[in-house]
């Protein structure tokens, strides 16, 4: 328990110290998006990595969050924080209601159903022009602020987003180490055995689905208020797949892995500008190769590497043995 807390504290300290080491500019802006994507990847990982339930419709909750926040604040002049809370509640309720029939399905059928849900939401965002602005997007979303503090620079946005992201990570780590986390992992391993032990698998799956939707929705609200412009194309199927890739690359069931995956997939294109047209191919290859050779993701890879190094280091290995 304590070790886990120290690990998190170290991680948080590094995350919050990052802006001091880079001198502003573009990288900081990208890191804001890394924070948002971390929230989304952690949300998906709770569902996929712990409960073992796939979702290809995460972008829908993300989009709903962004649009509800955008519309409530811009069209109806609500306070952004109120709007964010209301959006989260509304999306949570929606996820809870559709969760029961959707999570009855398994495997491919679950993938297909969540995918279908994602597409339906995307179509609504695209077609309900009078409210959402349709395909050309929705602009003029106000920024966030507390009292006189307005989150209007990259640095301030960075701290806002990463405070949220770190909070989400901490809560997720706590959750996975609690009775609920154990029950979820139990469902993943053997649903029948878990149910025999009194775990209400169905309800728990719906609850974690809801939880994941609410986090995604919050990330969406943050996105809307940070970018101040939203359009449906950000929340399409391809983004759901991108999120899936982040989680898989980072490591199923590892919260820090999700952050790593989100950072990698958001930053990598920046360093590989030369790839341009090739990035879609690289994506596909990454998904296949990782699933085939490193199903535990990079985090597992690092652990294996670490174990290997320790074995090579006779002194330490000797002490351990």
């Amino acid at each position, binding site marked *: 328990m304590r070790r886990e807390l120290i690990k998190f504290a170290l991680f948080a300290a590094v995350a919050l110290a990052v802006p001091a080491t880079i001198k502003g500019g573009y990288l900081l802006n990208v890191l804001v998006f890394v924070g948002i994507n971390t929230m989304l990847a952690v949300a998906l990982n709770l569902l996929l990595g712990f409960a073992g339930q796939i979702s290809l419709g995460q972008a829908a909750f993300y989009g709903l969050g962004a649009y509800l926040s955008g519309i409530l604040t811009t069209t109806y002049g609500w306070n952004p924080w109120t709007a964010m809370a209301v959006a989260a509640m509304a999306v949570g309720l929606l996820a809870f209601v559709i969760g029961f029939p959707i999570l009855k399905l398994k495997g491919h059928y679950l993938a297909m159903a969540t995918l279908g849900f994602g597409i339906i939401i995307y179509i609504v965002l695209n077609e309900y022009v009078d409210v959402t602005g349709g395909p050309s997007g929705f602009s003029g979303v106000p920024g966030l602020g507390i009292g006189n503090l307005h989150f209007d620079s990259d640095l301030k946005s960075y701290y806002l987003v990463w405070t949220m992201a770190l909070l989400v990570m901490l*809560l*997720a780590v*706590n*959750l996975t180490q*609690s*009775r*609920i*986390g*154990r*029950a979820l*992992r*139990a469902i993943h*391993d*053997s649903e*029948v*055995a*878990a*149910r*025999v*032990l*009194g*775990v*209400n*698998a169905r309800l728990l799956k719906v*609850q974690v689905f809801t*939880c994941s939707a609410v986090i995604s929705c919050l990330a969406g609200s943050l996105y809307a208020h940070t970018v101040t412009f939203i359009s449906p194309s950000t929340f399409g199927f391809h983004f759901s797949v991108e999120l899936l890739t982040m989680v898989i690359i980072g490591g199923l069931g590892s919260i820090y892995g999700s952050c790593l995956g989100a950072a990698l997939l958001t930053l990598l294109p920046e360093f590989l500008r030369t790839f341009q047209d090739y990035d879609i191919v690289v994506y596909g290859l990454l998904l296949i190769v990782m699933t085939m050779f490193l199903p535990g993701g990079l985090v597992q890879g690092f652990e294996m590497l670490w174990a290997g190094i320790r074995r090579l280091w006779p002194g330490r290995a000797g002490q351990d043995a």
Partner: protein
Amino acid sequence: MLDIHGITCVFGGLTALDDVSFSARAGEITGVIGPNGAGKTTLFNIITGIYTRSAGRITLEGSDISGLPPERLTRLGLVRTFQNIELFGKMSVLENVMVGLHTRSRSGFIACAFKLPQHLREERRIREQAQELLEFVGIADLADMAAANLPFGKGRMLEIARALAVQPRIMLMDEPAAGLNSRETWQLGDLIRKIRETGVTVVLVEHDMELVMDICDTIVVLNLGRKLAEGTPRQIQENPEVIAAYLGDE
């Protein structure tokens, strides 16, 4: 305690169970035996809500429990173990038992995520209880091992500890001795008796005749989906129909 009334189960055109009735008395060990294909495991799966029955009724202390899902049964005090032990392989031995204590704790999402004090207290309590249960079945020294790495015999003990964690009033065991060597089987017999002494009613399906005859108070014999006989071990051993069923026609 547990009463089975005329359970019938039909798969497609095949009748797996035909009008089977018997009772397991409180505080006793009841054994269900029968040759392969007699329908023993099917019966267990029906009682524990994994398969659906075609006809019949099951009551637990007089209240109807037929067709309830497994998680509801557990809350009513009925738990089972599996023939091929179903452990949560990626978790530690201790954690496996802690999952068994799921119904004995009630912190919700919020309490867990924010580590509220009552959750932390509860977590400590669960951990201690789980450790005690591991001691009860005799594998306390393996608490931190990954369950997947346990030898089969120890895995069986873990599964029993995990089932005991839900504090059942009645425990159904599906071939607990399968895959155990004779020493382990002997230990198992002791453990089952110990479990009965704590006041838990036990029903077990078993192939190992020696074990069944040794520990059971009552034995039910199934053959080809029907109940063939019911009685004390002595009565069963002397029943000509049972002998015929096991040895084939003379």
